[in-house]
Each structure stands twice: as C-alpha cells, then as structure tokens.
C-alpha cells in the first residue's frame, strides 16, 4: 500500500464535477418524466380489454426490457446517426424507452391490484372511463406501487451514467476527464459515487415520502 490518497483533486476540479452533476440531474429528471409518460401509457394499455392492445403493450415491455440500455443508447446515437440527434437527447430517449418498460410493468401491476369493483362503481355512478381511471384507479394504484417506483427511479439515475459512453458530459464522464488529467482514478470515482448516492437517496426518499405515506392514510380511512 504505497498509494498516497489525494482527495484535494475533487475540490480542485469542482467546476467540472458540478457541471457533470447538473447534467446527471438533467438526464435523470427528464428521463424520469419520459419513463413515467411511457410507463403510464403502456402500463394502462396492458390492462386494456382489447386483446391486440394488451399484446402490443406486452410486446413493448418484453422487447425493451430484454435489450441492454447501452444498446438502446447506441441505437439512437450510432444506429440512427443519420438523424444527428444530440447525444444528450439520445441518452434521454434511451433512458425513457428502456425504463418506461419497467415502469409499465409496475403500473400494470398497480392497476390490477385495485379491486375491479372500484372502477365498476365509478362507471356505475356516471363517471366516464377516463374519469374513473384518473380519479379512482390511478390514485390508489400509485400509492400501492410507490416503493417499486422508487426502486426504478434510483435504477434510472444510476443507469444515466452509461450516457458517458456516448459522450454526454455527465458525472461519470467528468470523473474520467479528471482521471485523465490527474491520474487520481480512485479519488475521482469514489467522489462521484458519493454524488450518485446523494441523488439516488434524495429522489427515492422523496418518491416514498410523497406517495407511500399517504397509502397508510388511505388504509386508516377505509
């Protein structure tokens, strides 16, 4: 163990790290919104009464989940390089489509966990199908699936590190750059691990706090 640790490089290159941090945050948040949008649509489609729609949504989930995220990214970045999409948006598309498939499965399970009578009662009392979904099924499903959602969200944040491979200047990319300048590999990567830990914990705890806590309220009321 002749290695001398030198953590000062993290402070010295704080500008790069901060920039990387903001890119990672941007990737995660926009990717998250995209994944939720995809997931809610595909997941709801998966509970549809129409057989072809169920099959299509199931197919989407299987295809997107069984292809590595890295390949998703290369698909937009290399495969469709003729489109000349900026690498940042390639990464967002890949994250939204890939994680959307996971969100869809959770949404589907959540919707199916709401007793059918709830929706039927809504329809019987004169709500349209969309209103019944929006005001009766979704709110209950959401509370049910909050823990799995928190898991998927933290996964997505960590997955965003793969965007560095298609040269998005996020945290992992910046750590690589700092390593290139200083040869302080260990310090750089441990430093950004802590940053990831911070983002992951914040987002997953927020998700749990916002939705899961209310689940017990509902339980108390009924």
């Amino acid at each position, binding site marked *: 163990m*002749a*290695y001398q640790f030198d953590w000062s490089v993290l402070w010295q290159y704080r500008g790069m790290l901060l920039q990387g941090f903001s890119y990672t945050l941007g990737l995660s948040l926009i990717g998250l919104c995209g994944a939720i949008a995809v997931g809610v649509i595909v997941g709801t489609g998966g509970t549809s009464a129409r057989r072809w729609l169920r099959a299509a949504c199931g197919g989407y989930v299987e295809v997107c*989940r*069984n292809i590595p995220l890295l*390949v998703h990214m290369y698909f937009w970045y290399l495969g*469709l*390089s003729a489109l000349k999409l900026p690498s940042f948006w390639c990464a967002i598309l890949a994250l939204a489509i890939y994680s959307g498939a996971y969100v869809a499965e959770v949404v589907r399970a959540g919707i199916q966990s709401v007793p059918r009578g709830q929706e039927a009662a809504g329809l019987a009392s004169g709500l349209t199908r969309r209103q019944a979904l929006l005001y009766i099924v979704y709110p209950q499903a959401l509370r049910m699936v909050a823990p799995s959602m928190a898991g998927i969200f933290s996964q997505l944040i960590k997955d965003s590190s*793969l965007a560095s491979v298609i040269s998005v200047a996020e945290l992992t990319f910046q750590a690589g750059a700092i390593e290139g300048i200083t040869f302080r590999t260990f310090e750089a990567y441990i430093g950004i691990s802590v940053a*990831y830990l911070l983002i992951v914990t914040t987002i997953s705890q927020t998700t749990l706090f916002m939705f899961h806590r209310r689940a017990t309220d509902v339980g108390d009321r009924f």
Partner: protein
Amino acid sequence: MNFAVVWRNLPYLLQGLGVTLQTAALVILGGTVFGVALGVVRTSRIPLLRQVAIAYIEAIRGTPLLVVLFVVYFGLPPIIGYKFTAYQASVIGFILFIGAYIVEDYRSGLASVPRGQIEAGLASGLTVGQVLCCITLPQAIRRMIPTLFNQFVRLLKFTSVASVIGVTELTGAALAVNAREFQPIEIILTLAVSYFVVCYALSLVGRWLNTRYAIQT
C-alpha cells in the same frame, strides 16, 4: 438495409457472443456464491463485520455499475499493485456489483418463510441446521427463483457495459465491426436482436422453473 455485413462478420460476432455468455455464466456462479458470503457476514454475531457488510451493500447499490467497473479496472491497480486484464476486471466488477443485489433477494426469500414453521421445526426437536436445510431453504429457494432470474437477466444485459473498458464481448465486437464497415443500423439492430433472444430465453427458463417448482398449496 443490407445485412450482408452481419454474415461477413458472423464468426467474429459469434465469438463476442461466446464471451458474453461465458462472462454471464461466471458472474452468475460467482455472484450467487458471493451473495451467500455477504449474507453470512451480514448476519454475523460480530457487530463490526455486520456494519461493514451493510455499508458495502448500501454503497454498491447506490453506485452505477460503470463506476464499479472503472474503480476495479483503473482505480484498484495502483492501490493493490496488481493490474487485472479488462476481462478479469469486468468479471470481478460484475460479481462485486451483483452480489450486493443478490444478497437482498436471499434475504427477502428467507424472510418469506413464516417464522412459525421454523419454531415448529425447532420445537419438534430438529437442530438449527436441519431446520435450515429441510424447512426454510426448500421453500425460500422456490420463492427466490423469479427474483433471482430477473437478476440474472439484468446481469446478462449488464455484461454489455464491459465493452466500455475494452472487453470484446458481443457489444464490443459489434462496435469493432461497425468501426470497420460503418453500417450502424444493421449492426446495432443485429446486436439488439441477439441480446433480446438470449435474455428472453433466460427469462423463459426462469418462468419455466418457477411453474415447475411452484409451491403447491
């Protein structure tokens, strides 16, 4: 679209697929064993060991795989004074990474066996070891099959990340072919289909095992 490029480079791509499958097999074996070791340490009677294991599991679960690979491949050598090859580093990194997830699956699987059964076993005179291997494990393992196979499929997909540190597995091979021939759409689509086939097959095995050994109630 002209898929001749794929046929031309088929042997090379298949070799890459071989490396991918070999890596996945090694990591599944290694990760399963490492998960057990982590679980043993985490439930150890010595508080310090327990804390170390918990800290390790939490730290790994909060860190992206790519960062773990970089630490093993680039960060560790100056500290331990030994340089891994890219392949060794990727296998070690994957095992270190996936072990922290597998140990949690073990925990939830073991916790799913009702306590009353364990107590009943002990009360009827079985030893702790007998309770574990005749009552707890047979049920827990069956309940773990779906989550474990999810983990294995995840891991199979993760092996693509090894291409980033220069392992010529399937993704690495495809990228090399693309660099030579530049037909990205054909090559990336082939890559996607190959991963889909392999991963879907593995998840089907999981489903089959799950129905085959489901707990009859």
